[in-house]
């Protein structure tokens, strides 16, 4: 019967927010204003349509840092067995290993985008979409990102 208890809680926040939970020092629920207030970067990447687009957003690594995820000098030893599960509001899920996100390991920036070509992301795509540059398939360009879970592989 847990759903009955959960229902009013969900109803209170009818605005999309981003939850960061799991193996984090500080679990977060970032409201739209909070994400808007974070430093934004811009990247250019090719979407499924084969065309280059200009995406603006917060580097995923910055969101993880805010939540106190083991990155940089701490991303060693058993922490290398952690993974990041990104969940969309429709239930779609994609996974990253932390070194795919950490600039100590990779030159590419995975972006939590909130705008494309100067406009907010459209309905059905936004408010947040991951942009994963230099991948041949955009299957991990997950739309309507609602939650990020950091977990240990068991």
């Amino acid at each position, binding site marked *: 019967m847990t*759903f009955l208890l959960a229902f009013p809680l969900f109803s209170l926040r*009818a605005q999309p927010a981003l939850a960061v939970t799991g193996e984090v020092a500080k679990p977060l629920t970032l409201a739209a204003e909070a994400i808007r207030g974070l430093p934004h970067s811009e990247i250019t990447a090719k979407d499924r349509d084969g065309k280059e687009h200009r995406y603006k957003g917060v580097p995923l690594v910055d969101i993880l840092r805010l939540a106190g995820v083991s990155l940089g000098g701490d991303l060693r030893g058993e922490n290398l067995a952690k993974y990041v599960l990104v969940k969309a*509001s*429709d239930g779609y899920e994609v996974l990253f290993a932390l070194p795919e996100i950490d600039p100590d390991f990779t030159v590419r920036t995975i972006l939590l985008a909130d705008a494309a070509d100067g406009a907010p992301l459209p*309905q*059905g795509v936004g408010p947040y979409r991951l942009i994963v540059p230099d991948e041949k398939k955009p299957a991990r360009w997950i*739309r309507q990102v609602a939650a990020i879970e950091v977990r240990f592989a068991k």
Partner: protein
Amino acid sequence: MRQLRWLLGSFTGIGAMALLAWSPAREILHLPKNPRTSQLEPYPFIYPAAFGNRFTIPDNNPLTKQGVYLGRLLFYETRLSSTNKISCGSCHQQHRAFTDGLPFSTGVSGRPTRRNSMSLANLLWVRNFFWDGRARSLEDQALIPLSHPDEMGQPAVVAARKLQQMALYPPLFKQVFGSDIITPERMIRAIAQFERTLISANSPYDAYLRGQYVLSEAESRGLKLFTTAPAMERQVRGGNCAHCHGGPKLYQEVFHNNGLDRIPKDPGRREITGMEQDQGRFRVPTLRNITLTAPYMHDGRFASLEEVLDHYSDHIQASSTLSPELMPTDVSRNQMTPQEKQDLIAFLHLFTDQGFITNPAFSDPHLTHLSTQKSSLPPQKSQSSPRTP
């Protein structure tokens, strides 16, 4: 219970067959050695490796053969309803892949339910139940139809009291749960155990995946349309059905607005999450046994697969929450020709699993008792109450 989950998780295909003859499981499982549980045997799952092991078995409800059997009795137990006339099996009939053939079902009140009865197949892997995903486990799910006034209309605690008075059940609860006190919690655990065994994995499509079935030309064209994303700018035609209904289990665990209405009468998942973006979103159901589960959609509005394909091809209604893959304005998409629709339907027929809908292990065990009065598992009291088939 981690060992148990690991163990169950590794039982795939032939491995599971071997396990049927494997006895020392109990020791490896570290089940308590007291008399109440020592006779319980783990239930071995058999399914294709491609289904994967991402199960949804709560740690406190591992499957045992005895628990599954009790759950099967309860699934078909009409005393779980206020009128003693409706069981889970009334709206989830095995010969229709556990649906009832109606747009909406009627329970004890005679009023129609709000949504179409869902097919029960491969629930072992499902993570959010109901058309709107409101229940996170089969255990949570089972309580809802039990007490809903238009379904079985009786609080589970009342049902438990009724079962307690019957000769049949207390010994079985004792065997499965170590106590003959019947509680709602134990009832739903047993029902969930049975439901997790409803695996459909032996349709002609599965045989095709194993390399044991050769597609006809129409089926082959249907498969191509099913799996191809259209790209009309490159003259690539496709239905892209697999985008949401793909994979060996023929569904993705996602909730989408599939363009039935511009302004949906039923808010769907939005009712659960309160989120605007979930307006008109419903579970993407499995296509397993889809020829047997008409009528279609959450409100049973389409009587036939032809109507379903006409919808996806020609009648998608745009709205702010419409799934982006279905945008009618998307120039990459193509409408289906009558021939293409026929080919797709030929392919959809491959998902019908005759073994699933005739498997005696999923049928009403009360009927078996009446007709044969024998059952190897577990021992039955002879004075089990009379039943009307």
